[in-house]
């Protein structure tokens, strides 16, 4: 069946022959194609879509707060098709505290960068005086032969 060293052509011929044999022996029904009818009736074995049943877990008077949250979430899903995303996330830190912290934070981090080299200045120098700085840099980097 699968022989080594077969040319691609002979392989193709063999495949075609196999296909022909298969298609001749292949049984098929001689009936005309049936039209698909009644595509608008859907069979459903579950009661959920028919009767709009509620969610099965329930809790009352705060017995299980997580289940009560779930109840609100799941039951409103059926009434409103859009799931409401939390508009206001309850913040752990209040806005005022956030503003105060941020003020001091900017100051402390800003001081850190005063000590460092100003990379923006270096870049400006490069752009402005290309011809001037480059040869001087090159001169510095080149090996200076000790003069006899």
């Amino acid at each position, binding site marked *: 069946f699968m022989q080594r060293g077969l040319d691609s052509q002979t392989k193709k011929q063999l495949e075609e022959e196999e296909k022909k044999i298969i298609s001749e022996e292949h049984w098929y029904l001689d009936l005309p194609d049936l039209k698909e*009818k*009644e595509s608008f*009736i859907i069979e459903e074995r579950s009661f959920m879509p028919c009767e709009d049943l509620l*969610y099965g*877990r329930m809790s*009352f008077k705060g*017995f299980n707060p997580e289940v009560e949250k*779930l109840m609100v979430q799941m039951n409103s899903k059926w009434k409103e098709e859009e799931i409401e995303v939390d508009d206001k996330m309850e913040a752990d830190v209040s806005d005022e505290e956030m503003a105060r912290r941020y003020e001091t934070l900017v100051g402390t981090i800003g001081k850190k960068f005063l000590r460092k080299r100003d990379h923006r200045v270096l870049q400006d120098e490069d752009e402005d005086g290309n011809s001037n700085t480059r040869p001087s840099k090159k001169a510095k980097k080149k090996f200076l032969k000790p003069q006899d």
Partner: protein
Amino acid sequence: CACAAMAAAEACVGQVVLPGDVLLLPAHPDEDGERLRLGTAAAPRGRLLCGPGLRRCAAGLLVTKCGLLRHRPAGGGAAAGGAYWVDSQQKRYVPVKGDHVIGIVTAKAGDVFKLDVGGSEQASLSYLAFEGATKRNRPNVQVGDLIYGQFLVANKDMEPEMVCIDSSGRSSGMGIIGQDGFLFKVSLGLIRKLLAPKCEIIQELSQLYPFELVLGMNGRIWVKAKTVQQTLIIVNILEASEYMTAVQRKQALAKLSGN
């Protein structure tokens, strides 16, 4: 009521139907014509939902269970297009895909738990089907635990499979049901009554005392309240509410809240 085997679907709404009755849907124009017209004008009926107890047949809908025929007219929301179904009563549950049920763990076979859901076969639940479960981080499930989950696969040819996460991977309330509490069985019709959007029984009970309730579509209810006595009171009311009238129920509750 008319005992005719064939009748128009709309005429039978709210009446008792028996298996073998054929419900005729309003005659619709030619199929090819409808195919063209559906594109331009809004389809008058849209897609009709053929619910439990009904099957499609050549003429219309064939009834397979005895009960009252219910109809929900077409409206916006979850299912566009009207829905017909048979409101039947039974105690035996047949697993249906998508149903949320309470199962009891009966065996741990390697990576899979076997759950008893009240059907003809035990359902299987993989340990990876919990929220946040990995091969290293296995859920702590013992034999005899109660699990609230939904069916992933449920047909008459295969063993039912359950999962405790939804399609987005979140548990949304499913999983192991906690300690204590009381599990009991009721008929399926009562469960559907209790899960209806505005159920008076549940509303009245919620005024009594704080408690937690899990309703499984397989007829099982789990109740937990602060004391054993309160739990048992709720259990008795739920069981009896199947056959009590609204007046009797209110009387019973009034006595309780008085005590």
